[in-house]
């Protein structure tokens, strides 16, 4: 199948659009950065969704974070903050100590170990056969399962939905 499915490298996927999007995100100020740090910590610690009103002063930065696609807001709650999802997805990430959290998609699940600089276990299912499997991921990369392939979907207007798979 590898010979017939179009393969992209990480370098291919980090194209001009990717870099432009991140340059825009990097224009946010200190208050928004601090708010995002707090939101990401809350997702990891307590899970989501997060009531915006519970963020205190950080609540004022949420529209800016939402506009730059760093979080997704619905009905006064932050329902996802990449890589975390506040509602069930096919990607369960088990943190050290056993806490289970949902990741938005396959790439997000793979990136959590690098974000937190600690090992995690990703529980998901094969898009092809439906079989459930686990993948251990360390901050420097996945352990084992070298034959697993990832599908990197275009998020586009699909915000709020998981759109990649393993």
């Amino acid at each position, binding site marked *: 199948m590898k010979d017939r499915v179009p*393969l*992209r490298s990480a370098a291919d996927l980090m194209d001009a659009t990717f870099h432009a999007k991140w340059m825009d995100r990097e224009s946010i100020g200190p208050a928004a950065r601090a708010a995002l740090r707090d939101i990401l910590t809350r997702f990891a610690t307590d899970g989501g969704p997060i009531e915006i009103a519970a963020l205190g002063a950080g609540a004022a930065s949420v529209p800016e974070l939402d506009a730059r696609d760093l979080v997704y807001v619905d009905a006064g709650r932050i329902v996802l903050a990449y890589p975390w999802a506040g509602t069930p997805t096919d990607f369960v990430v088990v943190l050290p100590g056993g806490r289970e959290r949902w990741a938005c998609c396959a*790439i997000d699940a*793979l*990136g959590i170990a690098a*974000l937190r600089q600690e090992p995690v276990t990703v529980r998901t299912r094969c898009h092809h056969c439906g079989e459930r499997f686990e993948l251990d991921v360390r901050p420097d990369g996945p352990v084992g399962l070298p034959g697993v*392939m990832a*599908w*990197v979907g275009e998020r586009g207007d699909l915000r709020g939905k998981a*759109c990649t798979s393993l």
Partner: protein
Amino acid sequence: VAEWWVGSRAAGAAATLPEAFRLAAAVFGDRLRRLIGA
């Protein structure tokens, strides 16, 4: 199988696990960590 593998998903592309992790590490281990001052 390849046709189904592509056609049953949102538009996008396949990546090997190491390449998918490289992308994930660049996004979350590098860009996002710098953004939040981790």
